[in-house]
């Protein structure tokens, strides 16, 4: 087949089929409420960290579900676990536990790699 040079630009596209969704799956299994997020952003609006840094929990949620894990891995340590996001979530997602589980999943991934 002729190669026209078209490819997925990692910078622009979400390579959904190629991306690793295992972190999101790990969280969903242990905290099923994670599945019910509607991306309303209430968590990010109230987030202490999000008001001072680039951290947005809503964005983390969607990135994990799309398998864009690198950004999340880099950002997730910023959360101070204050739990305000859990208080405001209209879907009753246990957002604090989502963060803890994401960290746990990244840790395990790291260990397995070593």
């Amino acid at each position, binding site marked *: 087949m002729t190669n026209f040079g078209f490819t997925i630009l990692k910078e622009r596209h979400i390579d959904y089929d190629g991306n690793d969704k295992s972190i999101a799956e790990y969280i969903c299994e242990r905290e099923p409420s994670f599945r019910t997020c*509607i*991306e*309303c*952003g*209430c*968590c*990010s*609006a*109230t*987030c202490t960290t*999000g*008001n001072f840094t680039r951290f*947005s929990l*809503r*964005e983390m949620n969607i990135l994990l579900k799309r398998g864009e894990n690198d950004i999340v891995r880099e950002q997730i340590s910023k959360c101070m676990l204050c739990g305000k996001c859990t208080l*405001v*979530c*209209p*879907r*009753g997602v246990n957002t604090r536990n989502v963060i803890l589980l994401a960290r746990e999943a990244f840790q395990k991934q790291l260990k397995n790699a070593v």
Partner: protein
Amino acid sequence: MPEKRKEVIIIGAGAAGMEAAGQLARADYKVTVFEKEPKTGGHVKDWYHLFPDSRDSGEVIEYLDKQLDHKNIILRTGTVVENIKKNDGTFVVRTSDGGEISSDAVIVATGFDLFRSERKEEYGYGIYDNVITSSDLEAMFRKNEIKRHDDRIPEKIGFVHCVGSRDEKVSNLYCSKLCCVTAVKQAMEVKKHIENARVFCFYMDMRMGGALYEELYKESQERFGINYIRGKVSEVSENINNKLVVKVEDTLAGRPLKMELDMLVLMAGMEMSESGLKLAGASGLKTGENRFFSPADHHFGSNKSKIKGVFYAGACTAPLNITETISHARAAVADVIDYFRNPKS
């Protein structure tokens, strides 16, 4: 036919109850309508203009009043129905004044209550003077006086969608479905009153699934310049300048947003009415997880209860607009007549 004329009791004289009463009366049934409030008309009378065509709610009230004005109808206002009991083929209804009256069928049309916005404490209703509800704003429209608490004209006004709807924190998972279009209508109306006003709607999803809703939404952008920001407001505070400060994430820009406002309108959702809930408990009528009456069948029996001869009409079954409420009431009447003709089926 020497057969005794059938009698129907209707509980509630809002849009649903009034429409059903009129239809039954004209079909020559005897109807008694109970209304807990001193006046009929339910929530419609509290509204000023109606979506999607800005019609004066007074026209709807006038139509509904005409339905009730029939020799076959007895209206009893200021009377609460406490329970319904089935006795062989007849129903005995007990009222708050200790009376009992019987009938051959009952239509429950107890409607809805507006969500009490003070329950979302973080939005500051009842705490900050310039946080009002959609219902308060209608009252201002009617008085032709949109003013802040300090009598100044607000120039920057926000609308918060989904107050008490789609919110598990207040046990209301369901969408009230009319608040979005009401916000669009009210935002436009504010602009008609205050020409230089800047208006912002904070929404989670714009649910414009009714006749002419989407058109209204577009008109609000095109003709009135209403701004839409996608994000659920997390909290509201007041600053030293006596302005309201709203915290929200602009989810489409992906960044938290703070905005100062002169006035904030909370789009209160619809809940099963308290009186309906009491009646359900006292009469063994089934309610769903959303606390509204659950119909016998979602497709073929949305007017039927589990008790044969007791029917539902209107927003006591789910959030409904006026058009849907009137259609639902007519369908209830069809079911009642069918029940009289074929009581066994």
